[in-house]
């Protein structure tokens, strides 16, 4: 193979390297003093926007009762079969309520279908992304962990009303 000619020959200043090296150095210096984007995670936490799909939670009304009427649509639509609902009756005006509502967080794929299908706006995706457990039993979230007061979920609910 013969020597291939360069597409662009270097001129004198490029050939003596030093001006080019200085150019490169100034570029790296510029990057050195640029503000960094990294978050120092445990101290500094990422606050997601309303469109973020974190762990699904049940909305708890101000009187401490869940909105859920245990229709089972979420359980039906869940592609990963993560949700288990068991309905029961109460004396209250809204007579159906879930006796048992469990989400297996090892199965959940955070698709948000449950939230989309829910006719009562009772299950929504929260901003909670810190989901760590040390065994399989802990990964099944019951009603005690799923119920979240409506005041904390306000911006997600507004987001859903606007875009769903």
């Amino acid at each position: 193979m013969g020597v291939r000619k360069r597409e662009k020959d270097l001129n004198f200043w490029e050939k003596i390297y030093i001006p080019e090296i200085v150019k490169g150095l100034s570029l790296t210096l510029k990057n050195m003093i640029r503000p960094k984007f990294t978050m120092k995670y445990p101290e500094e936490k990422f606050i997601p926007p309303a469109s973020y799909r974190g762990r699904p939670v049940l909305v708890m009304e101000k009187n401490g009762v869940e909105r859920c009427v245990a229709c089972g649509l979420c359980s039906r639509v869940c592609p990963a079969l993560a949700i288990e609902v068991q309905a029961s009756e109460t004396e209250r005006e809204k007579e159906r309520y879930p006796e048992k509502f469990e989400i297996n967080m090892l199965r959940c794929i955070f698709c948000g279908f449950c939230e989309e299908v829910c006719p009562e706006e009772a299950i929504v995706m929260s901003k909670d992304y810190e989901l760590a457990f040390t065994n399989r039993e802990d990964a099944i979230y019951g009603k005690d962990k799923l119920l979240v007061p409506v005041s904390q979920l306000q911006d997600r609910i507004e987001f859903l009303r606007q875009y769903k």
Partner: protein
Amino acid sequence: MSILEIIIFTLVKIVFILIVMLLTVSYLVYFERRVSAWVQNRLGPNRVGWEGILQPFADVFKLLLKEDIVPVKANQFIHTLAPVIALFVAFATYAVIPIASPLKIFGYEIPLVVADINIGVLYVLALTSVGVYAITLAGWSSGSKYSLFGGIRSSAQMISYEISMGFSVAGVILFAESLRPLAIVNAQGSWMWNAWMQPIGFITFVVSAFAETNRLPFDLPEAEPELVGGYHTEYSSMKFAAFFLAEYANIIIAAGMIVTLYLGGYNVPFFNIESLGLANWLTVLIQIGSFFVKMGALLFFFLWIRWTLPRFRYDQLMSIGWKVMFPLSLINLIWVAVLIMIFNL
């Protein structure tokens, strides 16, 4: 001064220099990681202690606890000897670099250099050449082809760049009319730095120093993409740490030599500190400060260059060494000779 006093003073100076060297080396490694992170828009190690300030100690403890593996095919004795040579050379070289003018204390006048020998520059050149043995022996005794490649490359590279380095230093010696580092520093004074007087020599010396210390544009002996880890591929635990320390100690020596030979050593730039008539200890302190500031700036420059420039190809490295650096250092020698002839310096 009696023999006993000389021995005591020398021991104190050696201990001081060793402690300073070890601390500087460990923090140089830390800053290497931080600077590389900053250049790449990362944060770097910032977890151990405040902003990761204890990271070097964590690293050393980790390395101490690692298993020391010697390959079956390796030559046991030489395999162990190589890191020892590397460390010895790296720390012994520092003996001749002065960090301030003599300190007058308790009626003694102590030169602030471990060994004020009249062939200091030759001593440094000789010892850094011995340093090649460490790398070459390490590569050869490991019984691995990648280590061997690293070792061979390093010996070829160091021999080629030592020539241009030696010729650049010749210009400095012509000016100072002495091989004593102290005399060279004094000859430069506060503004007649060799870096201004012979810029070409300065550039060739700095480039050769990069090549001698295996720093990045010339780090062919440990080119990771081709040679796994280079000459220290087969080293682990404290032996690997010894090479690592030696490499960074060499950078510090290179910086110290550049400061001494070209940047006026411990002199304060553009200002004659002695004319102020301060107390001797204060003058010495300011000079030590000035020396370490210059060293620090150069060390930062070494790191900065490393994370800016890509590695040369091996044939480019050799052709630059022989066809560019060597003639340039000769031109510098002629330039210095002409200067001396015209101005009768």
